């Protein structure tokens, strides 16, 4: 979707302002939000693409006025409500209401080191034929899906070159909507800065974007 999250190339947000000696977290509640991510992922109730799409669907003004971990908090609430796991009444009162479904046990503290060290790769062990190879010229599709996509607006309809083939990965555009993994090749695609931003951009500079097979056409 052409959401506010797709920030690449926009103007007007001001200076970067790095913080000196920044702590890992800025508040206790941020820690709790962060710490809930892996246990909730482990429940299998939603995947990371659904999570990201929930953030993308925040109102634009709200997205810009809230911090990173507020985005996460919003996404947890949104996906859990949409999956029918919690109700607004429960989130308001802070207590589970009524008889609760029997579930597999929550991620235990003893399982944390292993899950941290393993994670969950989006790579799919499947033999899928690549449509492109290193050095191929490609044009990015001019597409504007209303659902989740990992194709930023700034490179649509632009001419690029396949820099490398990362292999086969699940496709976020379908995975975010529970429509399957649709495994396909993901490539690093080279764009000259001038192709993306016009003749005033530096002649020497370039942008590399990781793009899926479904986003690309042969040039």
């Amino acid at each position, binding site marked *: 979707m052409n959401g506010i999250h*797709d*920030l*690449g*190339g926009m*103007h007007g*947000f*001001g200076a*970067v302002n*790095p*913080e000196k000696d*920044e702590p*890992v*977290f*800025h*508040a*206790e*509640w941020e820690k709790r939000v*962060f*710490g*809930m991510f892996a246990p909730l992922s482990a*429940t299998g109730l939603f995947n990371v693409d659904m999570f*990201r799409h929930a*953030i993308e669907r925040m109102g634009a003004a709200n997205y*810009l006025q809230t911090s*990173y971990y*507020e985005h996460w*908090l919003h996404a947890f*609430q949104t996906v*859990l409500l949409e999956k029918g796991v*919690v109700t607004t009444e*429960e*989130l308001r*009162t*802070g*207590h*589970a209401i009524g008889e609760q479904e029997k*579930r597999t046990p*929550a*991620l*235990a*503290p003893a399982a*944390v*080191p292993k*899950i*941290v060290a*393993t994670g969950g*790769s*989006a*790579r799919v062990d499947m033999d899928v034929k690549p449509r492109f190879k290193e050095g191929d010229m490609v044009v990015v599709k001019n597409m504007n899906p209303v659902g989740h996509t990992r*194709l*930023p607006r700034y490179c649509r309809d632009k001419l690029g070159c396949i820099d490398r083939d*990362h292999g086969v990965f699940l496709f976020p555009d379908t995975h975010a909507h529970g429509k399957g993994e649709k495994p396909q090749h*993901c490539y690093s695609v080279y764009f000259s800065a001038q192709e993306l931003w016009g003749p005033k951009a*530096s002649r020497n*500079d*370039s*942008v590399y*974007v*990781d793009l*899926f097979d479904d986003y690309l056409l042969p040039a």
Partner: protein
Amino acid sequence: MSDHHRHDEEHDHHHPHGNRPLTEPELRVKALEQVLTEKGLIDTAAVDALIETYETKVGPHNGARVVARAWVDADYKRRLLADGTKAIAELGYSGIQGEDMVVVENTDTVHNVLVCTLCSCYPWPTLGLPPAWYKAAPYRSRVIIDPRGVLKEFGLNLDDDVEVRVWDSTAELRYMVLPQRPPGTEKLTETELAALVTRDAMIGVARLASPKR
């Protein structure tokens, strides 16, 4: 009971050790964690363990070890650039948000810098959790269209003939920059070298300075 009294009681209930009212996110997080615990979806001790892991164990000191190893061991560097995930795992770093790693090398003629314009993807196992500026709109919007301007704000002025490559991690690959080894470090040990490597250099918004005498 007066409104004032009820108000105080709420404070005591939610925040026994302070006297300020809870903020909106604090209230929402507290409620969510409680509900999910009662439903058996999370174990708060696991939440505690995750926080502790990323506050104390996982951080840019991990990536610094990878960089120092690459500087002193040409064969390791070759493996690191060919298959980042595997070579980083050799030093014991792997997992969440670093499942599939790509390492890009800075040279005299090429400077790499990382961004995630769509969200805030970042290589957790080697760099830890991202700083706030990396996740915020100014960096994400600007570094892709004006990398030299943003790098200047970080105090890094690059010559026009240096090629700037911006890597936008739009898929599930996570990137890390292999910074250049600063001059005057020939006699340093691998551990001393690792101590020179900064998070910002591994994002690509800084170059490493020679050690002070």
